């Protein structure tokens, strides 16, 4: 009887854990070159947990200090972006190049399309808020950064295609 209860409890706990991990999202890194084909799925919740033990030595970087200086402005810009309706904020069109920065849904999107490469970035604004919050502390670990991707809508976050090479980071 006790063993049966233990097994049921263990099963429920396992199912809940799996549910949480799946619901939190799975980040998939996909790198494709003529020689290699890498496909790495990382459950965001696991990345969050494991990444907590990996500190990033950002505080020694001068660029990080600059970022800290502009933290307030960046937070304010993200806050304002969240309130904006869907719109094209910046668009540059040339014969062979097109750059667009726009807001769609709850994300800030950047599209660059030229003869050599295609870049698509979709930054969910909730993730940007979390990222800025994580970077506002001097001690940043990988887990804090990965945590920004939790509970984000599915889709590509970054997609870069350059000739025969392709990198895609998506959330499932």
């Amino acid at each position, binding site marked *: 009887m006790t063993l049966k209860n233990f097994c049921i409890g263990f099963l429920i706990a396992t199912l809940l854990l799996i549910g949480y991990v799946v619901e939190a999202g799975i980040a998939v890194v996909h790198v494709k070159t003529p020689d290699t084909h890498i496909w790495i799925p990382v459950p965001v919740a696991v990345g969050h947990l494991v990444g907590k033990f990996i500190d990033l030595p950002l505080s020694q970087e001068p660029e990080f200090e600059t970022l800290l200086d*502009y933290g307030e*402005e960046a937070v*304010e810009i993200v806050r*304002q972006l969240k309130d*904006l309706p869907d719109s094209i904020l910046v668009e540059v069109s040339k*014969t062979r190049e097109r750059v667009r920065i726009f807001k769609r849904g709850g994300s800030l999107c950047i599209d660059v399309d030229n003869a050599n490469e295609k870049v698509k970035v979709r930054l969910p604004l909730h993730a940007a808020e979390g990222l800025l919050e994580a970077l506002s502390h001097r001690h940043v670990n990988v887990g804090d950064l990965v945590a920004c991707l939790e509970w984000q809508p599915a889709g590509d976050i970054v997609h870069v295609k350059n000739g025969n090479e392709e990198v895609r980071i998506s959330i499932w």
Partner: protein
Amino acid sequence: MKTLACLVSAGLLFFDLGSPALAQNKNPWLHLEVQESNADPTLVKVNLPISMVDVALNVVKDENLKRGRLKLDTHDISVAEMKQLWSELKKAGNAEFLTVEKKTESVRIARQGNLLLIKVIESKRQGSKVDIKVPLDVVDALLSGPGEELNIKAALAAMQQKGSGDILTVNDHQTQVRLWID
């Protein structure tokens, strides 16, 4: 009861119709469109809420542009001279301040109500046309900086108070620029 329902419906309709306009007036957008029709035609469009431009100005740390103030890098006219000139011009009320009519170009600087108008037209073939309409409050705010600085942040704040409309249009045979608020 019916009257109350009608009143509530009318109120909701009024609120629905009025709120976007109010929100728009509260935070107008600055639009910039630059079109170059040279060998490599380029179209640049920037649409940003003025409040966001204001925040972004804090991030710019250029030698001449700090804290939203632009240090004027010209020896032709100082900001102090501009302020003096502007205060005299404002006293004049609605008037034509400058009219130059030449074979090749015409220039007109005038005040019309709450607007300062600057119009330059080159009469040669494919000559350029410059049309600037700046609300007086914006010029006041622009010249409110200390020393030799133009107060861009204050000018933006003044623009935020103003209604929508064109601020600058330039029509060159190769370049078209339009700056407006709505």
